[in-house]
């Protein structure tokens, strides 16, 4: 059964979109990630124009983050104060990101920019995760891990504008979470992702937040950042396809439930290792597409209808 997407202006098989939503939803439930970094490349791969894929995916992540944050909120795993600082940075970053998106689009370099961002960030994050999970697996076999200090102190803790974050047991400069929020915000707007895969490691390793509140707080701020991206893309580029977002979401909600059931069967480091392999896989695929000689060196793009 085919359905005509009004904004993407293409006809797609409705079951293909539902299946994609389901599969990515399963993986995001399994690994506890948003899945935007898998969905956006997949949408581009099936022929959805890159700007529509990014704008629509931001809209879908709003929904999946709302779903996810409810459970964490109930358990009290959301640091709202930290979330607010991160998200104030995120709003600034994502607004700049949408402007940058529009500028690159006018230069005809948006596809390249999206792909380069994917290669660089997925490569770094995937590589780090893989090293970390392999190390944990090896260490688990030899000696039990040492308990260290809550977190290390370094020059970052000497910055001004210090704030107390009770829920995260932190007393740090607000500049740090604000900057992290801003950087992730720019990437979120450019890549059509929530940015959890960058935000979560940054919260643990740079801010030193306890792991229990990391996911909930990350999801909380992602809702607002992706809502901002959705709104700005809707008014500046008109690339948010609500119909496509709803279809993806329907599949994702169901898939995520099955995914989270399976996740309890695997150990944390095994899950991280598998996720790392997948992240690196996507990175390698996109890098390969940039390097291999395209079938046609010329491409066309519609500009304006008279």
């Amino acid at each position, binding site marked *: *059964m*085919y*359905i*005509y*997407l*009004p*904004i993407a*202006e*293409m*006809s797609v098989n409705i079951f293909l979109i539902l299946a994609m939503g389901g599969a990515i939803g399963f993986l995001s439930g399994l690994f506890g990630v948003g899945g935007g970094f898998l969905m956006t490349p997949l949408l581009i791969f099936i022929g959805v124009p890159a700007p529509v894929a990014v704008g629509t995916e931001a*809209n*879908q992540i*709003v*929904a*999946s*983050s*709302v*779903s*996810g944050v*409810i*459970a964490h909120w109930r358990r009290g795993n959301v640091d709202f104060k930290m979330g607010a600082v991160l998200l104030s940075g995120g709003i600034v970053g994502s607004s700049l990101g949408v402007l940058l998106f529009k500028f690159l689009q006018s230069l*005809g*370099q948006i596809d*390249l920019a999206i792909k380069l961002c994917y290669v660089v960030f997925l490569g770094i994050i995937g590589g780090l995760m893989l090293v970390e999970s392999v190390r944990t697996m090896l260490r688990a076999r030899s000696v039990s891990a040492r308990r260290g200090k809550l977190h290390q102190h370094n020059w970052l803790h000497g910055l001004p504008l210090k704030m107390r974050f009770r829920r995260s047991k932190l007393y740090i400069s607000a500049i740090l979470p604000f900057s992290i929020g801003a950087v992730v915000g720019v990437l979120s707007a450019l890549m059509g992702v929530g940015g959890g895969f960058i935000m979560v490691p940054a919260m643990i390793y740079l801010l030193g937040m306890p792991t229990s509140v990391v996911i909930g707080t990350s999801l909380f701020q992602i*809702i607002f950042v992706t*809502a901002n991206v*959705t*709104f*700005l*893309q*809707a*008014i500046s580029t*008109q690339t*948010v396809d*609500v*119909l496509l*977002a*709803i279809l993806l*979401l329907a599949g994702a*909600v169901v898939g995520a*439930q099955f995914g989270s059931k399976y996740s309890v069967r695997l150990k944390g480091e095994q899950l991280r290792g598998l996720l790392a392999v997948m992240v690196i896989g996507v990175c390698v695929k996109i890098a390969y597409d*940039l*390097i291999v*000689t*395209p079938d*046609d*060196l*010329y*491409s*066309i*793009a*519609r*500009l*304006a*209808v*008279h």
Partner: protein
Amino acid sequence: MRATSISLLLLVTTLVSAFAATAHGQALVADLSRHHVAITTGFTGAEVLMFGAVDGEGDIVVVITGPPEDVVVRNKQRIAGIWVNARTIRFEGVPNFYAVASTRPLSEIATPDVRENQQIGAENIAVTVSIADRGRPAEELATFRAALIRNKQNDGLFSREPGEITVLSNRLFRTGIHFPANMATGTYTASVYLFHEGSAVQSVSTPILVEKVGVGAEVYNFAHRQSAFYGIAAIVIAVFAGWLGGVIFRKV
């Protein structure tokens, strides 16, 4: 089936009137099975039948042209190991869609000059190079123009080979036109030429209106005319759907 029988009925009645018209001295009459193509939510492309009658000898050529648009052609070059869009040329007034059908191969109907003049065949479509790019070498412009046509053909929007025209008893003709799902909205023009001894002796044109209708059209108009409200609505829908999902699966 019902739609086919209706269009057949339409065909017959129009052909009868076509005969009447040719009897009064008009050499060429033609019409379409429909003048309106609606892009609905289930749209996967459309078939439109063009038919008519001709009085006297000659070859028939049918040309369908879509609404004009500006197209930028980009050329990738390898920079630091990766393929990057490096050179661009902008063309104006490029038809979004172009299809041609003929009774014989185009090369047998008219000379290349005539075909170029009448814009018959995808390679003869007249496009304007934007003012900013007019100073580029002729060779480069030709390469980019060829790339434009090739890409349009790969997208299924320009025909590669002329379609067939069926002729009955040297008088009646018909041809089917296929519109792909990625066609643009706007006014299309269907033209029929009667060629005799290498030149077009007569031609008639008729418009086809292609527009989005139904839910899809409303979503599109909403997104483009009231972008801010559309953005807010998209967020509200997402928040509600996410909340609903969270609540439904809470107990599972």
